[in-house]
Structure formats: C-alpha cells, structure tokens
C-alpha cells in the first residue's frame, strides 16, 4: 500500500547488459522516490543511464534487478499513468499536428468527437492554434516540442517523464518552452502529479526542479540528492541560484585525486580502468589556452560554461581530460591550470606533441596498449583484437569509443599509427 503520497518508488534498480565476462553494468542499485507534487531532475554525464532509468520507470524496459513501485504496486509492463516527452520529439512525420495528438487518444479508445475537441483544446493551450493542419516538417524545433508536450498532456498522465526535452532546441525556444512548462505545472491546470526531467544541463535543472538527483557513470548510480528551495520564477543571476548551480558542478566535476587514483589501472588488471574521456585534442588545447589567459590561470567551472558557451557535459569531459593529463587541477568547483598545463598552452605545435606524448605514456591504458603491440608479431594488431581485449573492461560500444579516442590521442602524440583500410594498429617507429 502507498502509506504516504509516494507516487513512484525505485528499489535497488540495476540494469546489466550482456552476460559473463563481457557484462556491463549500466545502472547499479538505484533507489529513488518521487512524491506527488514533486518536480525532480535527474542530472549526470552522458552514459550515466538517465534515459535507461526513464525507460525503466515508464515500463518500456524491465530492469535486470530491483523493483519499480507505482502507487505502492509493482509495475507490470508499460505504465498507463506515465508518459514521456522525447528529446527528438518522436512525432509521426506523416500525421498533422492535430492527428499526432489525436492518435494518442485513439489508442485509448476515446471516441472521435471527444478526441478532436480535446486535441484542439490542448494545442490551443500550448499556443499552437492555427497550426492544427500543419505537418511536423513545417514547424520549428520549439513548436515541435510543443506538440510533443500537447500529445503527452492529452493522455492526462500522472507522471510526466521528460527525456532531455530542450536539448535539441535552440537557446531561445528552449527558454520560452521552459517558462511555459513551469506555467502549466505551477498553475495546476494539468492533472500531472509529478514530473521527472532527465537533463545534462545543470542550469536548466536548477531553474525547473524542486529536487536534483545527481548521477555519475561507470556504473550509473545516484551520488547526491539536492533540494532546491527557491521560489518560482527563479532568477538566474540570483546569488542563491548561482550557489546551487555551483554546488552541482562541484559534485559533478569532483576533486582532482592523487595521481595513482586518477590514472587507474591497466585493462585486465584488478582495479578500475580509467576510461579516456572522448574529446579532441584541439578542444582541450582551446580550453587550456583560455585558462592561460585568465588571471591566476583559474576559473569557476560554472562561469566557464557560461563564457565558453559549451554545454556542461562537454565541458566536464574536457576538464576530466585536463585533470588526467595533469594539465589542470579541480577543487571546490574551480579549475586551475598547472605549470605543465601552462607550458602546454604556450608551446609550439611540435613541443605540444612532445609534452602530450610524455603525458600519455603514463596512462596505464596506453602502457598496456603499447606493450601489447610491442609483443605482437610485426608490432601490429588488428582493431578487432584490441577491441575484444578492451571489452573485458568496457561494454562493446564504450570499448570502441575508448579505442577510437586512444588512437586519436596516440596519433597526435605520434606514438601510434593506424591504417584505416586494413584496420591495423602499429607502434610508430619514431615513438618507441
């Protein structure tokens, strides 16, 4: 029984893909409660399992372990009281705006007349009157997402899940749509009892939600619950607002750990293999140069995101790379360039490559890769062989991304060579 007003409860949810040696944990032991009247945001880096969690919550996917309780009862199949608004809108391109909303009602067996009336009313409420007969391809991203919202509202869901609904919109439409969502929600005009928003935009989460659930990856898990006790409408320049944003950044960016923890262990060895953040060297160099130009070579990560106009996910990955290479340190939400980072930022192209090469030689994953290549016949290995070996630590997709990143970095540092047509990795003879 639902003793209190808990709408949704997740108990020890885990999601594991694959089996045996190559299994990979996407989500580990997630516990989460959502009460009636709550607007919660799930936030975390790409790959932390936010979307998977939403699919589990709505019943699109059954978790490997754990229980989903909805109003105190275990969820069986798709939850008829929940719905999702998708990042990519998921509208049927061959149906008009109105038909897109109506089809959701049709599925529930609602008679034609009522269907049409309700669809028109909802489109009116999201400000799309006049566009009923338009096809999705005629509309802008912001308007498409309004249709997405109208369709979701049409089925009067108690639980509204939003899967990065603003991420593929331009800045201005995203902003106005956020405002309209809040208006609907705080105005109490909709039967929705709770909203769960998955996003990687920290500011957006703080702007909208009453509670922020911070997740981390490898494996996907909840690392912090943070209440946001600010009245709506929230002001982004408000020091209290900035303070909350800063705190989330602080948790997500973490602190630079002692070197052996930062580096992790080689694949196949006990201990956690440090995954390489998927970034390009040019972006990293850009970040370092920017920091080099600042007084004290230091910046508040939150302010950095604002000024560089990059999304928080990408920025956090770049920062992770800078920490890993020893070019910067992170503490209390601030990033500071090390003297090595400063040297790198000011060096010529040639010396940058040399610095980079000496730095990645320390990384266990590179040492492992180079010793494997060194021991191989003709000092070369096929991509597939290396990927299979990496799959002992990462799931297939991630292993591929790791290898791609490693080759990218190794080529830049002139330590590795790769022949794309034969898909073979070599040790760069000059690099040995």
């Amino acid at each position, binding site marked *: 029984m639902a003793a209190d007003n808990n709408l949704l409860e997740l108990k020890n949810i885990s999601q594991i893909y694959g089996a045996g040696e190559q299994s990979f944990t996407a989500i580990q032991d997630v516990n989460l409660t959502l009460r009636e009247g709550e607007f919660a945001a799930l936030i975390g880096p790409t790959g932390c399992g936010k979307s998977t969690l939403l*699919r589990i919550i*709505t*019943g*699109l*996917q*059954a978790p490997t372990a754990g229980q989903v309780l909805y109003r105190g009862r275990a969820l*069986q*199949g*798709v939850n*008829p009281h*929940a*719905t*999702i608004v*998708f*990042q*990519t*809108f*998921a509208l*049927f*391109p*061959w*149906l008009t705006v109105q038909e897109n909303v109506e*089809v*959701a009602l*049709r*599925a*529930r*067996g609602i008679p034609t007349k009522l269907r049409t009336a309700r669809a028109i009313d909802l489109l009116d409420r999201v400000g799309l009157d006049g566009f009923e007969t338009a*096809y*999705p*391809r*005629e509309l802008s991203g912001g308007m*498409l997402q309004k249709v997405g919202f109208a*369709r979701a509202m049409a*089925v009067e869901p108690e639980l509204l899940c939003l899967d990065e609904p603003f991420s593929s919109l331009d800045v201005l439409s995203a902003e106005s749509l956020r405002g309209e969502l809040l208006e609907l929600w705080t105005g109490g005009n909709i039967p929705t009892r709770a909203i769960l928003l998955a996003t990687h935009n920290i500011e957006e989460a703080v702007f909208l939600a009453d509670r922020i659930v911070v997740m981390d990856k490898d494996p996907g898990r909840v690392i912090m619950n943070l209440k946001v006790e600010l009245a709506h409408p929230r002001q982004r320049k408000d020091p209290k607002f900035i303070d909350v944003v800063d705190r989330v950044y602080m948790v997500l960016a973490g602190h630079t750990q002692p070197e052996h923890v930062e580096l992790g262990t080689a694949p196949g060895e006990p201990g956690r293999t440090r995954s390489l953040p998927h970034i390009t060297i040019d972006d990293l160099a850009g970040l370092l140069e920017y920091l080099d130009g600042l007084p004290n070579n230091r910046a508040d990560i939150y302010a950095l995101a604002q000024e560089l106009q990059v999304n928080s996910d990408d920025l956090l990955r770049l920062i992770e790379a800078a920490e890993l290479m020893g070019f910067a340190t992170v503490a209390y939400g601030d990033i500071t360039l090390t003297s090595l980072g400063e040297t790198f930022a000011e060096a010529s192209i040639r010396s940058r490559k040399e610095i980079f090469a000496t730095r990645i030689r320390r990384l266990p994953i590179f040492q492992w890769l180079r010793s494997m290549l060194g021991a191989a016949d003709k000092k070369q290995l096929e991509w597939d062989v290396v990927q299979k070996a990496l799959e002992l630590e990462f799931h297939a997709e991630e292993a591929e991304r790791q290898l791609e990143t490693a080759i990218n970095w190794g080529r830049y540092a002139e330590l590795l060579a790769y022949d794309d*047509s034969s898909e073979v990795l070599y040790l760069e003879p000059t690099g040995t």
Partner: protein
Amino acid sequence: MKLSPRLFQIARPILRPLSWGDGVVFLGIAVLIYAGIRVGLAAPEIIQGPEINLSPGVLPYYASLSLGRMFAAYLLSVVFSMVYGSLAANHRQMERIMLVLLDVLQTIPILSFLPLVLLSFSAIFPQQAALELSSIFLIFTSQTWNLTFAWYQSLTTIPRTLFQASTIFGFNTWLRFKTLELPFAAISLIWNSMASWAGGWFFLMAAEIFSAGERNFRLPGLGAYLQEAANQGDLTAIAWGLCALVLSIVALDQLVWRPLLAWSERFKMQMVESENPPASWFYDVFRNSTLINLLHRAILRPTARWLDDWLMSRFPLPVEQGGAKLRRLRPWYLLGILVGLGLLYEAYQAGQMLGTVSLKQWGSIGVGLSATLLRVLAALSIALAWTVPLGVAIGTNQRLAVWLQPLVQIIASVPATALFPVLLLLVLGLPGGLNMAAVLLMLLGTQWYLLFNIIAGASAIPQELKYTSTLLQLGRWERWRTLILPAIFPYAITGAITAVGGAWNASIVAEYTQFGGRTFKTTGIGALIAEATAAGDYALLLAATLSLLLTVATINRLVWQYFYRLAEEEYRLE
C-alpha cells in the same frame, strides 16, 4: 532537372559469408526441386498451346490478360512479404534462417525454376489453370524477395523513439501497423514495387513464350503475341505488339506508380521539405477533381473509417503484461526437428535420383555451365564498355540528362524477354546465330541496371570535388582514375550484381528456343535444362537446375561479396 532515382534504390541485403544456414537452405531448395520433379513426372506428354491471334484488335484483351497475371502475382507478393517480413523481424529464433533463405532466393536465377514449376503444376491442375497458376507463381517468386526484404528492413529500422512513443501511448497491433509500420515502410515499398514490376514483366514474358519439345506451355498474352508475330515474320504485328507493351508499361507508370510516389512524399522521415518532390500530373488531376473528392467524402472516407474502427476493435488494447515479452518457442523447435527429418529423408531420395545421372551428363552440365558463364561475362563486359562512358556523360551533364534520361527510361522499360523473338528474327540467320542472340538477350536484360546505377553514381559526385580536380588541373586520365572511377565504383558494383543475376535468368530462355517451327539450341546450362524438360529426363533436370543454383550462389558469395565489401568500405562518398 534532378535525376530521378527510379530503379536505383533497390534494397539489397549485405551479402553475408557462407554459414551453416546456407547448407540448410540449399538442402531445402534441393528437396523442393526434387518434390516438384516427382510431381512433374505425371505431367502430360503433349501440351497443346493456345492459338495466338495476330490482329491488333485483340491486343487490349491480351494486354489485360498479361496485366491480370502481373497483378495477381503482385498481390500475392505483398501479402507474403508482410507476413514473412513481420515474422522475421519479430522472432529472433526464426530471423536467422529466414534471412539466409531470403538472401539465397534473392540472388539465384529464379527463372531456372520455370520448367519445373510448369511441369509440376500441369501434373496437378487442368492444363489452362496450371499454366496460369505457374506463370503467377513464377512472377510471384521474382517479385516478392526484394519486397520482403524492404518490409523487414523497414520494421527493423523504425527509429527507436517512434517505436517507444507508440508503446508508451499504448498502440495496439492495428494502430501500430497503420500509423507507424506501414507509413514508415511506404516509400521503400513503392520503390521496390516498381522494381518488382519491372522484374515481373521479364518473367511474365518468359512464362508466356516458353515451350519445350512437344510441350507447348505458351499462354495468351502480349509475350506470346510478340513471339507469334516474330515467328511469322509479321513486322506490322511486331510493331503493334511492342506498342501495346510499352503503352501498358508507361500507363502503369504514369497512372499508378508516379501518383503513388507523389503521394508518398508525405512519408519522408526528413524534417525538411525536399527541394524537388516527385510530381505527377495524374495525381494532381485526381486530387483536384470535384467528382473524385465527392466520391472520397461520400463513400471512401466513411468506409475507411468504418474499417478502421472495426480493425481497431478487433485487436484488443494492450493489457498490462509482465515486462519484456519472452515467447516460448518450444513447439517451434519440435516442428523444426520434424521438418528437418523430413528434409533429410527427401534429400536422400533426391540424392538417389542424382545418382542415376551419368558421368557424361555431369560432364555436359560442366561444359554448359562454363559456356553460359562465358556468355554472361561477355554480356557484362560489353555492357560495361558502353554504359560507363555514357552513364558518366549523362550523370555529369545536366543538359544531356534532361533529354536522354526519359528516353532511356522508356527503352529500358521494355522487358528484354519480350524482344527476344524479335531479336531471333534479326540474327538467327547470321553466323553464330543463336549464340549471338543469347548474348544479346543477356545484354538487353542487364545493361540498363548498369546504366542507371552509373548515372546515379556520376550525378552524386560532389561539386567541390569536381572543382578541386579542375583546379588541380588533372589530366583526363588522372581525373578518371582519382575521381570518377572510384566515385562510380560502388554504384557499378550494385548494378553489376543485379545485372549478372538477370543474365543468368536470361540463359534459360535464350539458349534453347523454338522459332518458325524449328528448334534452335546452343551449348549452355539453359539449353540443357530446357532439353531435359522436353525429353522428360527428370534426373538431368534436377542435376542441371541444382548445379546452376549452386554455381551462381557460389560466385555471388566469393566474387561479388568481395567487390561489394570493397565498394561499401573503401569507395562510399558520404
């Protein structure tokens, strides 16, 4: 004018390496052929052909007969494709073997089944029905595989979020089919239907004109009319026949396929309006007609709504059910084992029948296969020699394309088999007669695929690359070597695979023919199959058909797969 992509977008499965599944599939096919032959043993010795009337007045009637066969076969194909494709897409256990089967059937020369199907059907059904049914069945086997593959591919590539949306909003089977699966597949289905019809004409003509020895399997229709006209050397009748054929094909194109294409534009997944949507005058007339609109509003729409409601209520709304669907497939395994045992027994019997084929006959099969292979290669080389320069010229030159493209399309729309009797009339008297006619027929059937694909490849070369090669002042040869040949390579390979498939098919009708009361034949596997049919040598028929299928499948796997990979991985301009 943007080059219309018709015929280019034939969905092709990625050729897979040989697997155990191929063995099973081949065993299955061998057993099927053997079963057909066993049934065919009872086929009547003499089959009387129909009287073909050569007066132009009967042409509408003949055309309607031919079209009727095509339409029946097409209907059958669509139903079969959807059932088969859905089964393969929704059942993991069946998917593997079903895909291998699809792959094999799509690449073997189906026309080699023609004598077999005719024999076995005429043993079961009364003569006229047997011939009609076997032509429909044969056209069906030529049309259905690419449709099936298109449907399967659509089902498995539906964007995940659309699928999730339909699940989260609780669509039932009908609603999902109507609002998601069918619209998503529509464009690919229409393009593939067009390709299927083009292929179907080729088979229809072959089915209408085929006869072996005392067995005259001909059917009244446009194909038989053309053959009879050529037989009698009646040039006026030939012209009338060709006119009727081209008219039928063009009318179908203008009145059915073009409007469908224009209409299906709404099913594009892209979120932007396309610059050059396919247009159709007939579709515009249709849409703007008051009468049609009235009809639509008064009868069609209410009927459709009623049907929709009825179907909607037939399929229950999905009830809450436990997590992921894990259907138990144990009964299927049992069935599979039983079928497998049956297959093995029949295969054993087929093996025994093959045992009666003498060494000399095996030798002649080998010689026949080599001779036909040489012909196929000759046809391919000739086709490449002229289609590459012309295709590149059309593809890179807008002005040339504007007037050449429609012309080429009309010429190409005439099925090569329909022209074969005419061809015989022209070259049978020359030295090398039938041999040359056979190569010419293969060429006629194959060159268009190549030409269209090369045009498509050449017109897809990005303008920047053309500018760059001009700026670099590359010489003529250098330009071909570094830009044009690599750019058209993947397209040429796709075209060549289809073309060679067509050439093997053509060998069945081309190497053995009865013309002007006389029988002409040349060395080749097609001649061997037809002769075996005429003589009632069933063991030889089985051996020859199987050898042909195995040879072609092996060449596909070993040679074309290599080129296809190479093209996909190294030369894709994307």
